[in-house]
């Protein structure tokens, strides 16, 4: 942490505390249970990685889900063949996703702008189609890759329990949870979440270091004006390729963690809607900021969880105090936006953010902060004048 500025150090400490205290902070909001917390952390990692490519270099990839899927598949294969310990699985998923990203990046990065987006989209769709059809021996096609009782797992002791073993870190099982009662709430401290959380913090720190390094500045320069860099005699491709591979490795890491918390992998993780989702998260949070992607990922996953649970009867109970006609009309309209219609809300929200708030939630926060400061500052001035 020596090389970080004062602000960055504070941000990192703040971030670490917030993440580690996640189960306590989020419990009052109904989000304190392990499954959702794990998803926050995993998609946070995915979005941080995506932001290293899109936020820093400006290259908009529409195929990042392919790396996520590859990471998941490799992790599950490691569980099947070698051991249920998570470390080898994670290592393999990062390495395989990195190699895959190297291959795709090497080809795609020959073009920029729209062409780059379309190339990555084409590669991701290709991987998705292949995973569904020809690669069925590796991916198990439509059913998805799952653990079996008779998998070899050569490093593990013979499995005599008759149940599929769970993922663990040197014996510490990932799905074990410690529960505490506090003020009427149940606090759940889950091993899997803390494992993801520590990796999220490490990933955040790495991203911070990358952003503040000369390499990160070079990436920003590529975003600002690549032509000028080329004219000054700098070959930008190694830099963009490195950024692409790094962000691919983050995606692979997220995919591996997904397999760790829930050991199965399906081809739908590679579909381009999944790639679109991470773009959404990054934009919503704030492109190019450190905290933004994590915020966006958390925001989307949280509201996905809340909104998809609301149904018509819940809506009716909310608006019961209104006259019947008004409440019926409101329920009728809102009905499209909740429950299964959550994606509609997401789409509308996404458009609003792109149109009015291109900097995402972070920019929104900054604007409100500045507005408050100006407002409060002015009232101070007027008070002074009155005195």
């Amino acid at each position, binding site marked *: 942490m020596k090389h970080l500025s004062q602000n960055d150090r504070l941000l990192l400490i703040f971030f670490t505390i917030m993440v580690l205290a996640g189960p306590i902070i989020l419990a009052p909001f109904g989000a304190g249970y392990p499954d959702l917390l794990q998803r926050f952390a995993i998609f946070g990692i995915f979005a941080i990685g995506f932001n290293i490519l899109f936020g820093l270099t*400006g290259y*908009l990839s529409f195929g990042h889900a392919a790396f996520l899927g590859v990471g998941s598949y490799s992790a599950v294969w490691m569980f099947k063949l070698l051991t249920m310990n998570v470390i080898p699985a994670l290592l393999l998923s990062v390495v395989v996703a990195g190699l895959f990203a190297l291959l795709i990046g090497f*080809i795609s990065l*020959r*073009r*920029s*702008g*729209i*062409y780059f*987006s*379309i*190339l990555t*989209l*084409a*590669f991701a*769709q*290709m991987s998705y*189609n*292949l995973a*569904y*059809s*020809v*690669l069925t021996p590796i991916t198990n096609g439509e059913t998805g890759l799952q653990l079996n009782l008779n998998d070899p797992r050569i490093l593990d002791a013979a499995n005599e329990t008759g149940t599929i073993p769970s993922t663990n870190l040197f014996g510490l099982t990932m799905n074990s949870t410690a529960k505490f009662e506090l003020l009427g709430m149940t606090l759940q401290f889950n091993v899997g979440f803390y494992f993801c959380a520590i990796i999220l913090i490490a990933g955040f720190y790495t991203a911070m270091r990358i952003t503040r390094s000369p390499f990160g500045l070079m990436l920003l320069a590529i975003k600002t004006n690549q032509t000028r860099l080329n004219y000054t005699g700098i070959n930008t491709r190694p830099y963009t390729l490195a950024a692409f591979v790094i962000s691919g490795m983050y995606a692979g890491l997220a995919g591996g963690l997904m397999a760790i918390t829930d050991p199965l992998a399906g081809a739908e993780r590679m579909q*381009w*809607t999944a790639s*679109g989702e991470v*773009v959404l998260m990054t*934009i919503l949070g704030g492109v190019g900021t450190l905290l933004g992607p994590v915020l966006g990922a958390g925001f989307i996953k949280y509201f996905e969880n809340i909104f998809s649970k609301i149904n018509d009867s819940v809506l009716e109970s909310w608006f019961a105090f209104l006259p019947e006609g008004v409440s019926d009309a409101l329920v009728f309209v809102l009905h*499209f936006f909740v429950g299964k*219609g959550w*994606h*509609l809300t*997401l*789409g*509308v929200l*996404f*458009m609003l953010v*792109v*149109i009015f708030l*291109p900097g995402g939630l972070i920019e929104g926060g900054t604007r409100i902060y500045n507005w408050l400061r100006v407002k409060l500052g002015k009232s101070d001035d007027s008070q002074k004048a009155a005195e």
Partner: protein
Amino acid sequence: MDAILLQILNGLDKGSAYALIALGLTLIFGTLGVVNFAHGALFMIGAFCAVTLQKLLNLYSVVIDPTKTDFLGNPLKVKVPYVESWFGEALGQSIINWSVPLAIIIAIPIMVAIGYIMERGLIKHFYKRPHADQILVTFGLAIVLQEIIKAFYGANPIPTPAPDLFKGSFDFGAMIGFAENTIIYPYWRLIYFVFSAIVIGLVFAFLQFTTFGMVVRAGMADRETVGLLGINIDRRFTLMFGIAAAVAGLAGVMYTPINPPNYHMGMDFLVLSFVVVVVGGMGSLPGAVLAGFLLGVLESFASMNEVKTLLPGIDQIIIYLVAIAILLTRPRGLMGRAGVMED
């Protein structure tokens, strides 16, 4: 020989859909310089125009038919669609039967209006923003349109049959001198191909032979100069957006009998249509049409059993492979102009 011809024919219907969508995408890109990720959604909305018309025509009133009785002797209630009670039974039934071709008539104004509103209401504000923003906002719009359709029509495909006259297949090979029963081809696919050829021809004729089209072509070549000559080029480009939307919509309307439409059909076609546009050359209208048919036929060849046993899975990825090869070796595409979006 007949096997080759059969594959070419099989590829034509998908190729027609690719060509029509890619034509619209290229029109929008060539005129307004915007990459429209919502174009697939327009295709889908076109298909749902046909679905809606079919549903509307099938609205019925329940009347008591005195001529028919149930086994107790009571007069039977029968459902009579309104069109049958208005236009008489024979005409009414044939109107319902022909709902898909009839949907063309309602689809054109609807699609032009949607395109117009989209351009004026949303895309207009994005000309000066980076390409990434344009992609993102139209992507968001595509999600919204898709989800609205899903909310109204559900997630399942809705069968929308062709008129009885064109159901089934015919022996195309025998008509052109091959042995009988070698080339069996469904009527509707042939009609789809002819229809899209007509639409493509109309678009090109409109651009080539009308004053309006001439101005638009001039604007595509040099927007500023046309503007300086005192022509309101923006207004014409807006109309071109409407026309592009209508082309996508028509492609969707006529595609419904081939594949029952569902809410995500647009997205499935969109990804491929982008690839088509890239292969054809960004901004080149003939390139888009040519590449559309070419890739459709190529896909159909790749799905032959002989090819599949040789290279398993090739049918799934052939289009992407071609696109990658083209982008890397000839970035401007097959017929793209030099210097247009080459990096």
